[in-house]
């Protein structure tokens, strides 16, 4: 779960990390009041869950009240389109108004769990304020990576090594020790999958300041962070994906017209691949879970049907623990309840499969039964060809 910049900074400030003074505003008037109180110049920054704001005009500097009003008016309500928002973009409802800062140097610092090595990774660079992936590709020697064992925790030698690699002077190094310790603590105590400070600036006042902060929380760990769970902002998310989430269904919208419903993520992906391979295009990824039941199937149907692009449906269920006859009754009930008006190919396999197929066949619904995956792919391809 991503936090907004202002939420991230509030969180990090609680760990003693230095952030610029700032206030959140949802309209021009309150934004101007905030700017007046902070004193000019100010930075006005769109609060959306997407990187690349700056290039898209979502961050503006204002030297005085007039410029601030202009910036606020242009950013608030704008639809921001960046590489990360997708085509539809996302509307700016909130800005962060921050005190301007005189910058001496911009660094890059991030802490994140490194899945491959099972350690915490700290990434640092003297090339702050820019696209760090570009720096890594162009001048890899300018990226420092420190691995920290999660049990051992951050040791002085880790910090010292990074400080030397960033070529910090003595005054900077002393502050850097506390800064990195606090940031590491914030990450580990809050289950952050990412805390990225870009740029971390060293100001004319000889202090470090977290000018921008990108923070992502592990959704699986929200049960122990009620304060963070309360910060969830779903306004930018796809409504169907949100709806699916309510029923613990994994649903992702794609661009095709064949709706799919599968139990298990791996099999769901493989089913999408199968549809593509047969010459059709999947409209979505929908995993109803390895232990899917009739109720989940019904919720799945409703989500699929709510997408107007879906013209046909492929259901692929490998009944393991769940018996196929039970499943078949669920499919029939759900199909009736949702009044499906398009072709549905059902492939089921596993325990009691014959009984299941009998139930589907006797349902008087327009359900097409496939005997195996190859058969299912051929049938869905036939249907897609006729759409």
């Amino acid at each position, binding site marked *: 779960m991503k936090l907004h910049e202002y939420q991230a900074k509030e969180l990090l400030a609680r760990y003693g990390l230095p952030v610029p003074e700032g206030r959140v505003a949802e309209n021009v008037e309150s934004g101007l009041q905030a700017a007046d109180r902070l004193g000019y110049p100010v930075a006005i920054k769109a609060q959306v869950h997407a990187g690349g704001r700056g290039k898209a005009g979502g961050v503006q500097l204002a030297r005085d009240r007039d410029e601030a009003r202009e910036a606020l008016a242009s950013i608030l309500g704008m639809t921001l389109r960046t590489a990360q928002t997708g085509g539809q973009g996302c509307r700016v409802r909130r800005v962060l108004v921050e005190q301007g800062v005189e910058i001496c140097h911009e660094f890059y610092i991030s802490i994140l769990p490194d899945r491959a090595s099972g350690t915490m990774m700290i990434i640092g660079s003297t090339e702050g304020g820019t696209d760090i992936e570009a720096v890594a590709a162009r001048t890899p020697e300018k990226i420092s990576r420190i691995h920290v064992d999660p049990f051992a925790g951050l040791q002085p030698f880790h910090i010292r090594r990074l400080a030397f690699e960033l070529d910090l002077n003595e005054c900077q190094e002393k502050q850097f020790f506390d800064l990195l310790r606090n940031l590491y603590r914030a990450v580990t105590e809050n*289950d952050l999958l990412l805390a990225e400070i870009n740029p971390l600036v060293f100001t004319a006042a000889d202090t470090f300041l977290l000018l921008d902060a990108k923070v992502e929380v592990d959704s*699986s760990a929200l*049960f122990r962070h009620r304060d963070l769970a309360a910060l969830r902002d779903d306004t930018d998310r796809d409504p169907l994906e949100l709806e699916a989430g309510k029923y613990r269904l994994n649903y*992702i919208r794609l661009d095709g017209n064949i709706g799919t419903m599968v139990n298990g993520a*791996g099999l769901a992906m493989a089913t999408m691949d199968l*549809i593509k391979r047969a010459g059709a295009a*999947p409209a979505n*990824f929908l995993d109803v879970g390895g232990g899917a039941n009739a109720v989940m199937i019904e919720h799945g149907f409703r989500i699929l049907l709510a997408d107007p692009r879906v013209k046909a449906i492929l259901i692929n269920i490998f009944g393991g623990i769940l018996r196929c006859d039970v499943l078949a009754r669920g499919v029939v009930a759900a199909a009736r309840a949702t009044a499906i008006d398009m072709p549905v190919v059902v492939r089921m396999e596993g325990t009691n499969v014959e009984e299941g197929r009998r139930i589907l066949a006797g349902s008087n619904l327009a359900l097409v039964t496939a005997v195996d995956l190859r058969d299912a792919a051929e049938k869905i391809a036939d249907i897609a060809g006729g759409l």
Partner: protein
Amino acid sequence: MSIFIDRDTRLLVQGITGREGRFHADRCRRYGTRIVAGVTPGKGGSEVDGTPVFNTVAEAVRKARANTSMILVPPPFAADAIMEAADAGIGLVVCITEGIPLFDMLRVRSFLRLTGCRLIGPNCPGLITPGVCKVGIMPGPIHTPGPVGVISRSGTLTYEVVHQLSRHGLGQSTCIGIGGDPVVGTSFLDCLQAFAEDPQTRGLVLVGEIGGSAEEEAARWIRDHLDMPVVGFIAGLTAPPGRRMGHAGAIVSGSGGTAAAKIRAMRDCGIHVCEDLGDFGGFCARVFHDLAPEIVFGQDKASPPDNTTADSFSARKKS
């Protein structure tokens, strides 16, 4: 022979008094697995379907000589349960639980490195040595004993693959689902090394998916060390980048972790990659027949591949 579990497996089920725990313990018991104990703190002294329940794993090890544990407890308590098992001297822990916080798993992994315990999972279906021992939640009847080892990151996709193998007369030595999380206890590589030492296993099936680079590493190891035919499959050719496809580990980031890259790496290392899941069993039968004909049921056998249909599977289940 087999890897990790066999006739000597003495299974403990952590969370046996829960709905899921009891159900799957019973399924494993019926498959033939020796369930010697359950653990639920505070329920010590009771019984579940004839299996004694203890308060702690240490007690279950001492009194019931459990050597393997299957964990089905809710995510907030799973990491502690794994560490408890490892600390008590359990040699193999199979964690089914999905949704464990990543940092918990990092700590668990460091903890396990301090002990001699192997973890399979979390977020996995477990593992099975067909006809001998099942420690997991997979449907038992789709499996048949034989010479093919199966390693997979998925659940139902593994069942699909195994089902097709069985239908084509390709029995399995051991089938392992290593789990779909980004941090798992046992990697493809660990399983490969174990299979390489197993005299029963004469062919391997590797089922991967997008995300990470475990498949690439496995492929390189196979090229350099393994002397048996390997069939690979990768799910997620059509997955859009940057989105998490169900499994927490299934995400394509930047240019890394794509299905296409994995397939290329596997082919470069001499692995026979099947791209059509609908024909997976047939593909395996052809590869193994050409390279290691002893793996596939011969023509002279009573039960030629295509007779073992879904119907006979269903019938076998009922008998």
